[in-house]
């Protein structure tokens, strides 16, 4: 007799544990408010990424097309995988001295791992991380970017 009660109790507990699980899924089946899916391309406008999100390296320019990069190559040294390449030129100043400035800051997005080390290393805060994250393109060459805009100059007072 004891055996039979034990057997029935076992079966009952087993069935009960299954019903507990089914109640949970049944709850979510009927409560559509709990749905967490975000419909991505539709919510593009309302999707705000946090300021610190590391999307890609950009060089901010002011309204006079001026940037803060001195061409010191600190970012190039700091980068672990060679995504940044500083091409420098020497400008002849009025007093006859030569001054180092950047010609191009080449950025290889295809190599970048968004580790933020270049931004940390930059002494003049010339480069920052942008929040864009849709980087897919059809041609790999489009991922090689020049960060300074054409014709841009270094901002006054940045050494």
């Amino acid at each position, binding site marked *: 007799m004891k055996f039979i009660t034990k057997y029935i109790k076992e*079966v009952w507990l087993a069935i009960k544990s*299954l019903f507990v*699980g*089914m109640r*949970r*899924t*049944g709850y*979510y*089946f009927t409560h*559509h408010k*709990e*749905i*967490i*899916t975000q*419909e991505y391309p539709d919510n593009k406008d309302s999707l705000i990424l946090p300021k610190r999100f590391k999307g890609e390296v950009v060089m901010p320019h002011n309204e006079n097309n001026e940037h803060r990069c001195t061409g010191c190559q600190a970012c190039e040294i700091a980068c672990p995988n060679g995504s940044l390449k500083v091409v420098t030129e020497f400008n002849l100043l009025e007093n006859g001295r030569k001054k180092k400035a950047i010609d191009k800051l080449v950025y290889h997005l295809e190599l970048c791992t968004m580790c933020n080390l270049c931004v940390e290393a930059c002494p003049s805060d010339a480069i920052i991380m942008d929040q864009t994250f849709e980087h897919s393109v059809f041609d790999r060459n489009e991922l090689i970017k020049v960060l300074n805009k054409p014709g841009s100059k270094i901002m006054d007072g940045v050494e």
Partner: protein
Amino acid sequence: MWSFSNIADSIHNGLSQTFNPTVTVILEMVIAGLAVIGLFAMLGLVLVIMERKVSAWMQIRLGPNRVGPKGMLQSFADTLKLLVKEGLTPNGADKFLFNLAPFIAMIVAMLLMAPIAFAKDFQLWDLNIGVLYVSAISSIMVISILMAGWASNNKYSLMGAMRSGAQIVSYELSAGLSILSIVILTGSLKVSTIIQSQADGWWIFKGHIPAIIAFIIFIIAVTAETNRAPFDLAEAESELTAGFHTEYSGMKFALFFLAEYVNVFIVCAIGTILFLGGWMPFHIGHWEGFNHVMDYIPSSIWFFGKTFFLIFIIMWFRWTFPRLRIDQLLNLEWKYLLPISMINVLVITAMAILKWHF
């Protein structure tokens, strides 16, 4: 009033006025065949979108919502994709058996449609051993799975097929015993008689607790027989990638997929016929007014409503439970379900003899 049986009668009358009896029968067969194929396609589309939506809502997701209104045409898109996909036959496969297997699965599912009463007086073939026919034909399903698994020449497929063989053969027993308990209560194997016997109440209510136990065992057993989770060992994807249909692609895969869903529909339809009164409306004792309102709902809606409710329960299982292991699966059958259903059949026999049921 509009009903399926009226349409069938008017078609029959129209045909027999214009053609001689032999041609009429042939034409009617063709129409019936086309209707079954059409129902097949419809069921595939409806059940796939239903499964996807049910699973999505249980998993706090939205589910398909891009194709058509609220994503309801998603299964058309799926079908189109499967149709244009290349149907590969692996090099080392037994090509004849490999290509035959999905068709056997389909044909079995189609044959099972024959004795099902979709509405009042609307049935393809009301043969006098209807229930026996169903349990006999549904066993052939295992042959197509074994064939697919063997012919694929893939170890995963073979293991899936072998698991499925062991599983279907075992669970056939308790499914059969549950069916038998209703046959005992009714005293007939004929589908129309079984439904007629439930005019004053469905067997699940009339048969007291033993009928409920038989019903639960039936649901568990058919879930296992149709290879659906938590008994989907034949295609256990985390263990055997995709089980017996690992090597199938394109339309051949779609046929297996379709056969699985149609099988689910059929076993649920059988469950409806045996336990939930088929197309019989829901009546409560002597509430004449209530019963009258229920009678106004067409019988086909009663049948499909009950069937889809059972399908929903089976989907609910799938999206809640983890999978069993093969030895636990067989233990469940031989140590729990079979003894319980055997005792249950005895109790029901006693009930039927002593006329204890309502």
